[in-house]
């Protein structure tokens, strides 16, 4: 295995992109990443694209060939592969691209992610997303995604005394970060009271505890670290890439307030990087719901189990805190185009480590972590990056 670096990044504006199709979003972000890296089409050895459900959202499968085609690369016949792990599809695309370069099989590889979610009604979108849960033994009985996380939240509150206000503070913080990020879907501050006054979705979770339906795409260009400087003055090293699986259904988990897939992927990533959690300067974690960010910072080892809510309340995860979490606005405010999210997380960390994050820049950031979850925790993917 050889060291791998990110030499180019791109990300579209996230939001309800009524005027743009899935292919428009891919072209926009692909061109941005390729221009940022300075590679030519002829140099690209492979493409990986994370996409959860083109079939349900835009009735389009075969996304691998589609993106190579619309990126203008069809005449070069570059192998292009779509990967899927529900909401962790983007993280998985990055990991596949990383493995291709690290193994020595490829040199220049594109890792992209895309989801176009607003071409269907919100009911159809919710049903497509529910396919990441166990269709036969959860959804059939009326489970929804917010309901699964609501059940984790209720048990976490019962066991550890996590409060309703602590959940709200995750959303308040991430909306604040979103206001500082030009690509963020939401650019509005919210208060704890706004969260509590928003409609109930699945008790105890309100609509403002939930990540939104979003259109968006992101892309990264990867290269062997030894030639990265040829393309970029500020290449970002991928120190670790880890992936873990768990039961598909929430009810089969060892513990309903821990995502064991996150625990295992996190441990493996820290081991690969030779780092410990306190050495991380900032993290993008999978906050599909407010409770998910609390679970993530616990399961990744940043705080002890049960104290995630308190850490948020104490400001540890704020931009000025010891560990700024979700400086992009997270899934909650920046938006959650499911297949693109894992790539956007790496994009945000890369900008921060390059010192290009503008108003939300974390001072002297050296090490960053990205954590992407599929479904209610059936898949977790963790990457660690350095300057």
């Amino acid at each position, binding site marked *: 295995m050889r060291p791998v670096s990110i030499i180019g990044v791109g990300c579209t504006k996230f939001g309800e992109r009524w005027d743009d199709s899935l292919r428009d979003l891919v072209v926009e972000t692909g061109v941005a990443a390729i221009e940022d890296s300075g590679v030519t089409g002829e140099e690209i050895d492979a493409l990986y694209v994370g996409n959860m459900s083109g079939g349900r959202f835009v009735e389009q499968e075969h996304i691998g060939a589609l993106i190579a085609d619309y990126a203008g690369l069809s005449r070069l016949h570059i192998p292009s592969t779509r990967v899927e792990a529900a909401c962790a599809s983007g993280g998985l695309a990055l990991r596949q691209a990383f493995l291709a370069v690290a193994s020595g099989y490829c040199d220049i590889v594109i890792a992209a992610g895309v989801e176009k979610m607003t071409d269907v009604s919100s*009911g159809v979108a919710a049903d497509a997303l*529910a396919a990441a849960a166990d269709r036969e*033994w959860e959804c059939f*009985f009326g489970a929804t995604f917010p309901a699964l996380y609501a059940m984790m939240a209720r*048990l976490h509150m019962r066991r550890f005394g996590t409060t309703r206000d602590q959940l709200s503070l995750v959303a308040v913080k991430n909306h604040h970060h979103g206001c500082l990020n030009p690509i963020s879907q939401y650019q509005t501050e919210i208060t704890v009271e706004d969260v509590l006054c928003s409609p109930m979705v*699945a008790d105890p979770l309100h609509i403002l505890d939930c990540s939104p339906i979003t259109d968006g795409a992101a892309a990264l260009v990867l290269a062997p670290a030894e030639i990265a400087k040829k393309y970029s003055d500020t290449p970002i090293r991928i120190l670790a890439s880890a992936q873990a699986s768990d039961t598909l259904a929430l009810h089969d988990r060892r513990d309903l307030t821990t995502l064991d897939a996150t625990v295992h992927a996190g441990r493996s990533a820290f081991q690969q990087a030779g780092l410990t959690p306190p050495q991380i300067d900032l993290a993008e974690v999978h906050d599909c719901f407010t409770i998910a960010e609390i679970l993530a910072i616990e399961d990744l080892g940043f705080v002890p189990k049960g104290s995630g809510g308190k850490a948020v309340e104490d400001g540890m995860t704020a931009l000025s805190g010891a560990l700024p979490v979700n400086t992009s606005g997270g899934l909650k405010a920046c938006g959650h185009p499911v297949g693109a999210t894992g790539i956007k997380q790496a994009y945000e960390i890369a900008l921060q480590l390059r010192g290009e994050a503008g108003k939300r820049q974390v001072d002297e950031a050296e090490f960053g972590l990205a954590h992407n979850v599929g479904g209610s925790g059936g898949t977790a993917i963790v990457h660690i990056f350095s300057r």
Partner: protein
Amino acid sequence: MTSKAPRFWRCIPQRYNLIGTHCHNCGEYYFPPRTLCPNCRRDAKIEDYKFKGTGKVVTYTTIYNATEDFDRMTPYSLAIIQLDEGPRLTGQVVAAPEEMRIGMRVKPVFRILGKEGERGIIYYGTKFVPAEEEIR
């Protein structure tokens, strides 16, 4: 629910009568049924087992915003229930939201779970209600 008839029919034993499996080798019970025991894998000795259906609520939520198939039923309560034999499952509890609590005892009832429009399949299966020892 986008099921076609065979997809529903093959789950009837499990959904109507809570038939799961039991591994004779390690003694573990599985619902929904598994034909490969994660403890014993190829050493497993799997046989069908009919669960009593009684158990307790481990955690729950009341759903106010559902997918299209369940939209007309909101609000409804959904729980993860630990059966007395050990395994956990996800199911609806027919009870007012304010009656729900962690640890409450429940028992199974046979109910309509959904319909495929006016002329399609009617889905039946198991829901749960507070057990008598709860109501008392």
